[in-house]
Each structure stands twice: as C-alpha cells, then as structure tokens.
C-alpha cells in the first residue's frame, strides 16, 4: 500500500508505506544527510506529542531517513494514522527546531581500548595520530538511536575514515566502544557483537539503568570527542561508579 502524503512543505513529499498491519513507514529522500535527518526528527517530535493523546497510537521510531509509526489496528485504522502523519508533517515543517544538546565525550583512542586503530590507520595510509585528529575534528550529530539499547549512530564522519566493516564480526565488544563501520561512526552503549572497527572507548555509560531515564543520548544531540589517555580513562571510569556523577551536556547549549 502506498499513499501520497498530502503535504509537500516545499520538499518532495515523503512516501508512506505499510510495514505490516500495525506499522506505517514514512520515507524521506534516500540519503544520509543532516537536512533529511532533521526532517525525520521534526516529524518524530510532532508525532511523539500525539502518543498519549491519540488512542491506538503506540510508537514512533525515527531512523536516518525514515520513521516508523506503530499502532493498534483494532483501535485506529491505517487511514487515520496516515492523516495524522500528514497533519504532523505540516506542523513539523513550521515548528522551529529545538536547539540541540551538545556533549563533549571523552575517548581513549588506540591501545587496549581501541584495538583496531592501528589497522584502520594502516588501511588508509594514515598515522594513528592523524586518524584521531580527523575523528575528533567534527561536531557529530546523533542521527538515530537503534540496534541495541542506547546505541548512538552518528553522522558527520570524515570521508577519509570511511572503512568497510570487518569481514568477520566479533562476538563480544565492550560497552562504550567508539567504532567505525562504513560511512558511520557510533558510540556503543552495551556489550555486544559487532562487525565495526573499534578505534577507542569512552568511560561514560550511555545506557545506565541506575537512572530512571537510562539513556544518555537521543537523536538530534551533538557530539564532540575529546581524546584522553589511559590514566584519565581509569579515573573517569571510577567516577562513573557514583550515579551522582552522571555526565552532563555542555552548559549554555540546548534546552
């Protein structure tokens, strides 16, 4: 089922397609870029505002260039959800984007915390220090949180660092891994399998069940990486044992 959204908002209208009997997928242009992702997140924000108000609306899951809307089909029909998406697209096109939060995330690159740094540098004919310099230069944007709880996919990786995924995924990689896979870089939140290259690790816990809201990052946040050495990693990791020392976004930026 394909439905043309009624609102163009000065852009090509997103496509709305069924993903089963209880999910509609809203598809924006098929590319990874900040402007497309901003449109996804604006729509997500508008729809999340309806979650508790519209009976049967169950979930809003944004990704890079698409967004899934989950609903109970016995309480609300496909057509009504389509209409709601259309209205939310219109509302989101005129809503000012909220100022993003910015986080300065400490990362210990290379060594035991970034076992693939040297190999990745060799692959690109770069010195590891140049890889670190290129990885810490951009202001990244969290394009989406997905895969596993709190796992933050970042946009803005220097094309010189784009690296195909490992041929053999690793069964176990630690929480806090800073990794590169294809055109993407990410902050891993929980231990898990991964086919990405591990170039460093942050002592921060971005999924921490000691807090009522266990997620540190959300889609739309800005991320800057700051290199630290192993001693600083150990010091900051020890501080994290105290829940009161939860990392905070930079003051003066964001809501």
């Amino acid at each position, binding site marked *: *089922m394909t439905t043309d959204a009624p609102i163009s908002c000065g852009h090509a209208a997103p496509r709305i*397609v*069924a*993903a*089963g*009997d*209880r*999910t509609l*997928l809203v*598809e924006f242009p*098929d*590319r*990874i870029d900040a402007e497309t992702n901003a449109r996804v997140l604006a729509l*997500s924000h508008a729809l999340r505002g309806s979650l508790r108000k519209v009976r049967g609306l*169950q*979930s*809003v*899951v*944004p*990704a*890079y*260039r*698409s*967004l*899934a809307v*989950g609903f109970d*089909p*016995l309480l609300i029909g*496909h057509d009504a959800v389509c209409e709601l998406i259309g209205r939310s697209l219109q509302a989101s096109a005129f809503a000012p984007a909220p100022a993003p939060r910015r986080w300065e995330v400490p990362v210990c690159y290379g060594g035991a915390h970034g076992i693939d740094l040297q190999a990745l540098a060799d692959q690109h004919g770069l010195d590891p220090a140049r890889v670190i310099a290129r990885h810490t230069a951009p202001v990244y944007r969290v394009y*989406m*949180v*997905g*895969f*596993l*709880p*709190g*796992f933050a*996919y970042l946009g803005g990786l220097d094309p010189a660092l784009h690296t195909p995924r490992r041929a053999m995924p690793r069964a176990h990689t630690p929480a806090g891994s800073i990794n590169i896979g294809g055109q993407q870089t990410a902050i891993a*939140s*929980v*231990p*898990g399998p991964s086919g990405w290259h591990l170039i460093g690790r942050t002592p921060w816990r971005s999924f921490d*069940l000691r807090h009522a809201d*266990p*997620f540190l990052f*959300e*889609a739309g946040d800005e991320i800057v990486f700051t290199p630290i050495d192993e001693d600083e990693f150990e010091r900051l990791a020890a501080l994290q044992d105290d829940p009161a020392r939860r990392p905070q976004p930079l003051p003066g930026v964001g809501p």
Partner: protein
Amino acid sequence: MSARLRVEKAGMLTTVQDLGRPGYEHMGVPPSGAMDPGALRMANGLVGNAPGLAALEFTLLGGALQVLEADCTIAFAGSALLHASATAASPARSLSPWQSHRVPAGATLTIGPLQRGVRGYLAVGGGIAVAPVLGSASTLTRARLGGLEGRALARGDVLATGDGRRRSPRRWLASRDTGWFYRDAPIGVILGPQQDHFAPAEIGRFLGATYRLAPQSDRMGLRLDGPAIAHARGADIITDPIAAGSIQIPGAGQPLIAMNDRQTTGGYPKIATVISADLPRLAQMRPGQPLRFEALDPAQAVQRWRDYTEWVHAREDELRADPNFPIFPLLFP
C-alpha cells in the same frame, strides 16, 4: 509467605517473560516479551493472575523446578507432560497442561519436552517476581537486561514469586481448543516496505516457495532455509526501523524474520512483513518444519488479528467465568 522456585534443570533456554517492554524502540530497546503472548495470557488466567504477569518461557526441552517455603498454584500452557513428586525419592504424579494445580512446598515439578510447538509457559500464582526494567520483567539476554540478571535460567537459581491467592479455584480450559497455536496454514504477509528492491519474479519465487525453519532460529529472529531471493539493486539499504515480523533478505538471499528480541533497526531490504495474527504461530514452529507464505492486504490482516484476539479473549473469559469451581486440594496432602 510466597513460594520460591529453585531451578533443578534449566532446560534449553528458559527465561522470565511477560508481555514485553513496548515504548522504548526509539531508544534501541527491543520489545522482548513472550514469543507466544496468547499462551502466556492463558497460563496466567489458569492460575488467577492478571494476563501480563511474568512467567517462565520454556523452549523445546522443558526443565525442572523445586517449590520452596510455601505451596503455590501453577499452570503450564503448552504441549508437554508435567510431573510432580513430593520428594526426590517419591513416585511422580502426572499433571495435565492447560489446567491449574496446587503444588506443595518441597515438591519437584518436572516439565517434559514440548511435544508440539517450541515454547510453553509456566505461570505461578502471584507471578515470577523480578525487578522490572523499563516497566517489564522480560529477559533480553543480548543486552543482559530484565529477568534474572538478564540471562537464561541456570541450575541452582532461586526465583521469588509474588503474592498469589492462598487458595485459588481449580481452573482448566474446557474447550481444549489449542489448535490456533499449531494450525498448519500459510503464514500471512503484507508485501513491503521494500518490495521494490526485488524483481516481480523474485517476489513470485518468495511467495511460491516452501521454506524450512533453520535450527539457528532464536528469540531475535527466525532463519529460513529454502530458495534464495535475489536483490534487484544490492543488499544494503540505509538503516531503517524493523517491525515485528519484518522479513529481511540479507546478501545470501535466505529470509530472516524479525521476532521479539530483534534489533530495532537494520540495513537489509525487507520483502514483506508477517501479519500480527500469525506471529504466535510462527513462534511455535519447530526447526525443520516447512512453511509457505501468502500475500494479504492490510484489511485482511487486521481481520485475522481481530479473529485471533477474540479467540484469546474467549479463552480468558472462560477461565474467569465460573466462580463455583471447587477449591481443590494439594497434590500431596
């Protein structure tokens, strides 16, 4: 005092599950929960619990538990033989599934292998008591959260139970109509959302083929063996959300169906999505079992979901209906 349960035989994969933790998929948290939620609801109904209380999900082989400290009411929703013995040395007494039983402290309860289907649910009066994570007791082993320490049960684990009614009425499913779980009919799908990544002939191949459930299938996803499906333009899409029942076609072309512990997002094109009504049936399919797909439109899919929901509710109503069931005695008075 509430009973506690000590795991004597953990079985193949036994986890604490309830109806899952919806509402956090945008933060990367899979919904988890019972793979066959209808069966979980009936197990809970049989012991007088609210439908969504935490129970134990057994996989294929069953297991064994010893009841400690207090008597409890149990019921098993699934096709397995149950036995209880007062002590390790005493003879076992067989118990039927799909009905409640009062088991005394000290007794050992053995759940045999599943004879049909893959998953069965043991509910205990008061529910399995574990600390909820993001509003749910469900275990997600991949992220080590929920349930008992985020993992499958192991021999020697002791589980607490909630406050059940001390004397609960005996309940059973009189109709014994459990056919929905194991019905042999094509699995309904709605094509898309990425069917345009496949040539019409490949979609025809997918809908015409007989697949078999591969043994590597788990709570995250079901892998199918059978005809490979070719992509029209590569096996990669920009990572997008994955719904329950999404049928991804990875590079090698063998379909992969996303289930309860699925990753919330993924980068393979999805040829079709399994309809809600057929997900529980899919969750009960055994490794090697053949299956075919049938394309439906959303209106047909919603009608089947309505039928399935009404079937589950009818059985729950049956369990609640008669307040005059006798208070039944302990197994070993």
